[in-house]
Structures are given as C-alpha cells and as structure tokens.
C-alpha cells in the first residue's frame, strides 16, 4: 500500500512522497525540517476505506528499535532536534496479508479513496 501511495502522490508538486519499508532512527532526521508529515500505511483494524489520525510524539517503547512506530520517530526527532512537525497517520484498510503480489480488490478501492482524503487534507492545510 505504501509504495502505491507514494507512487500516486509523486507528481503532486506540493509534497515530497517517500517510501519506507519500515521506519528507522534516521527518519527522525528526515522529518526534522518538515512542516507536516503524513505516515501512510495499510491497516488491519481501521475502518474502511481510510482514516487520517493526528499523532503526537512519544518516547514509545517497542520490542525493537530496528523498526519504529511513527510516534517514536517523532519522539526521537523531538529529543534530538528540539522540534517536531505536525503529524498524521493515514491508515488505509487492507485485507490480504499473505506474501503475494498486488493489492486486493478492496485495498485497491480504499487506496483510491485515501488519495481523495489526501487531496482534501492538502486543500485544507493550504488555506
């Protein structure tokens, strides 16, 4: 889902879209100078089609710091650089989690809907 979202938004002039396999400590540096950051990924639990949820920095503990949660990236950014961007989680409902290729039909529909959500969000923050 993430790569497809990043690909779809790549041509959008107002934003920088980057794909990550997983978030790491270096992403604290990547978000440091941003005004607004949206972490987008497939979700097992959020309601379809997608949700845009504000998130706050946390000194979040997970069982590994090889892969950080978005809130932990923000928390690390705050501790290292003294600031954090406004941040949101774009959770796009997914359905099929097995190893394979491509998105499920439902995920494809939700991807399209999430892009509309992003467009609406971009319009609001531009005002």
């Amino acid at each position, binding site marked *: 889902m993430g790569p497809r979202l990043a690909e779809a938004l790549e041509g959008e002039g107002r934003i920088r879209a980057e794909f990550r396999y997983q978030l790491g400590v*270096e992403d604290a540096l990547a978000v440091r100078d941003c005004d607004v950051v949206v972490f987008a990924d497939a979700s097992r639990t959020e309601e379809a089609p997608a949700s845009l949820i504000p998130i706050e920095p946390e*000194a979040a503990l997970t*069982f590994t710091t090889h892969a950080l949660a978005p809130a932990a990236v923000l928390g690390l950014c705050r501790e290292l650089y003294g600031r954090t961007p406004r941040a949101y989680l774009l959770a796009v409902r997914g359905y099929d989690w097995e190893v394979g290729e491509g998105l499920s039909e439902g995920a494809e529909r939700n991807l399209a809907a999430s892009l509309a959500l992003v467009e609406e969000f971009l319009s609001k923050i531009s005002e």
Partner: protein
Amino acid sequence: MGHKITIEPVTRIEGHGKVTVQLDDAGKVTQSRFHVVEFRGFERFVQGRPYWEAPVLVERLCGICPVSHHLAAAKAMDVIVGVRPGGLTPTAEKMRRLMHYGQMFQSHALHFFHLASPDLLFGADADPAIRNVIGVVLKHKDLAVQGVLMRKFGQELIQATAGKKIHGTGAIPGGINKNLTLEERRAFLDAPDPMNAAKMVSWAQAALDFFKDYHAKNRGLIDGFAAFPSNHLSLVRKDGALDFYHGVLRAVDAGGKRVLDDVDYADYLDHIGEEVKSWSYMKFPYLRSLGKENGWYRVGPLARLNTCDFIPSPLAQKEYEVFRKYTKGKPNNMTLHTHWARLIELLHSGEVIQSLLEDDDLSGTDLVAKGKKAKEGVGLIEAPRGTLFHHYRIDGDDRITMANLIVSTTNNNEPMNRAVHWVAKNVLENKPEITEGMLNRVEIAIRAYDPCLSCATHALGAMPLTVELVDAAGRTIEARSR
C-alpha cells in the same frame, strides 16, 4: 515444581524470537532454548519466478539488510549467466563493493549506537524506560546523533549505488546497472563535516575508542559474560585478508586449528549440513566434517576476525592487532567481544569506502559481463551479521526451480542458544526471583549476535514479545510482555 521462563520476543533485535528456560524444582536449569516461531517461506515463493528477479525479490526478506541478499542473489545469478566470480568488469565489482561496504557501515553503526549501546551505557539492570535509543539520546546525545548520521551516510551510499536506500536494483546478473560519476564520488568525499567519508572514519575510530575505554573499566563483565568455545566460519580473501564481498570458505576451531580452508563456496553442500529441530523454524547448520554435535559454528564479526589473517586497511589493521593480542593470537570466544570486532569492522568499512570513492573505475562505462548460461548458481557474501548463502537452480524456461538460503542469523542459531544457556546457568539458576535485569541479560547475550530473525525465518509483520514461566506440568506460572 519446576518452572519454565520464556522471553518472547527479544527486545531490540530484528524479527521475532522467544527464549524459554526450564528450571527444575530446585531452581536448576534443565533446558534453555532460543526459538524462532515465525515462518515465511521465501524459498518456496521464488520458485517459478524468472531468475533475473531473484536479486530484487529475495532482498524483500528484510528491511535492515536487503543489500546483502541483493548482492548474494546477484552473485548466484552471475554464475547462472556464465560469469564466474572474478569475471565482473572492474566497474561492476567496485560498485557492488561500495554498495556492500556502505551497508556494512550503516548496519554496524545502527547496531552499536542504537541497539547495543543502551546496555553498555545504562547497564543490564537499568529501567527499561531508559535502556533504549531514547535513553541514549537523553543522556549521550552526541552518540545518538552520530549514530543517526553514520546510518544516513551509509544509506546514501546505498542509494547512490543501488538506486534506492532499501530494496535497490543496482546489481543485475553479470554486473551492475549504473556507475558513479566523478561528481557523485566527490560529494561523498568533500561534503562539509560531518557527512564526508573522512569524518565517518574519524567517528568510527571514536566509537572504537569508546568501547575500549568501556572494556577497560568493565573487563570482568565483557570478558566473562556468555564466553564459551566454538568453531568460527567466514569467507576470507584468497590471501587470508578480511573481505566482506568475496572469498573462500574458512573455518577454525576454538583453539585456532583450521577445520575448513580454501574451499570454493560453490561446494558448500559438501561441507555444510543443516539440522531441523522440532521446536524452532530456524535450522541448525553444522560443519559436516565435525558432525551435528560438534560442528556448529559462529559467523559474524567475531568469527571473521578469528578466521582472517589480516585486515587490508591501515587503521583497522592496527586495531585488529590489538584485538588478536588480547587473546595471544588464539581465537576470541568471548561473546561480548563481538561488539569490539563489529566496531573494528565499522572502521574498516569506513576506510574501504574512502578508498573506493577515489577509484576512477567506479565511473567506468563497462557495466555487464556475459558468458555461457548455466542451470545453477551459488552466491555467498559476508553480511553484517555473518556468512550468507544463496543457492538457486533454474529450468529451461529460465524459471527458478530451487532456492536454498542459509542466512547469517541461522548460522548463529546454535551459538545464540549456547549464549542463552550460559546466561540461564550463570544468572537465572538458583535465584529466588527472576528480575527484569536477569531477563535483559539473556537478551544482551542474543543481541551481541545482532540477529535478524526476519531473515532467518523470512518473517513478515509485527511480532509481539511475551515471557512465560511454565512449570514442569506445563502450566503457566508467570507471564511478561514487551
């Protein structure tokens, strides 16, 4: 009644692991195991795919060390397209080496600064709330910042050589699909501090000095913790030099005797077997000449410095001489000395990167070699965590029919179990209460191996951590989650 202590998963390693310690009624350790419970099945998934997809498909096993898989698969595919090891163009080989050493640099930096350092800086008994990377930031901000920037430097090298920071496409069967311009090379050499190669070498040296200082003040802990004799295996260059990209197989026993030497890795199946055990999805490799019981071996930084004869870069060679002198030239079997070895490799990687960036061959235009197609290819490489084996067969339609991957962490399966057992016997046994610090010591032993359990079981997804204390009858007495 006896009880079993389970730690699942182990914090601050990649993937999902579970540790189980069985105690009898008297509190004595009767058994300890390091389980890996996820199963992914990439070896089956790639079957039927065109062979040229292997380097970009298999690297998706992992988001931490994809370059190793990318290059190991590419080396196997080189053989399939008829290009023997050593037959790449100079540009292709050096671009791949730069990619690989960039990965070694960032991986080792990440491990030390963000995974291992909390244990060293705060101690095994510190509050878990600070014994992590956030705690490192709060107390030793300079170290945390350096760790992030060293990782960024390595990631940018990977992006320049592979096309992307993660899951790049640079290495193709028979060569590489891009070179580096002089401007790109100079950018890494001449960028303002700190993002240049010279500064990275300087920081790597400082990290090594930090560890040596820590070791001098904590010798008993670092030398004694989870120390046990083992065989050691790695690739070494034909002349015995440390080489992460290519070499011949060598193994030494705990006393330094060579039990495998100058072996072409294409023949690995003649020398390496894999045992399957019922309680783990991760296999147990062993040296056939020594048998299943005695043939297990360590791989990774400690093993590499035990098997090689010298390091071909001056600063790291100097540190290597100090390292070897510490054990009077004999193999080092002290688990926590893996951190020392890893930092020497970090320094070596920085030196090699600096040297390669000056090499005009990186800007050459001859990128791909060709030869007579074969039906089978083996590619081995020294990944950050140790020797990585990729082996493929294809059919007449160029589709993969067989894939066998022995990843570094799998090679270290038995050593990690031995380390857990050492901690169980020496720290958990006969104690009236199992403390957080004791459980963390089990994890410290495993973390020294920097395991990537996602690779080892080719696992995906989020994995929870639970600790269970189970009595001899199998009833859960206590459970902890992380």
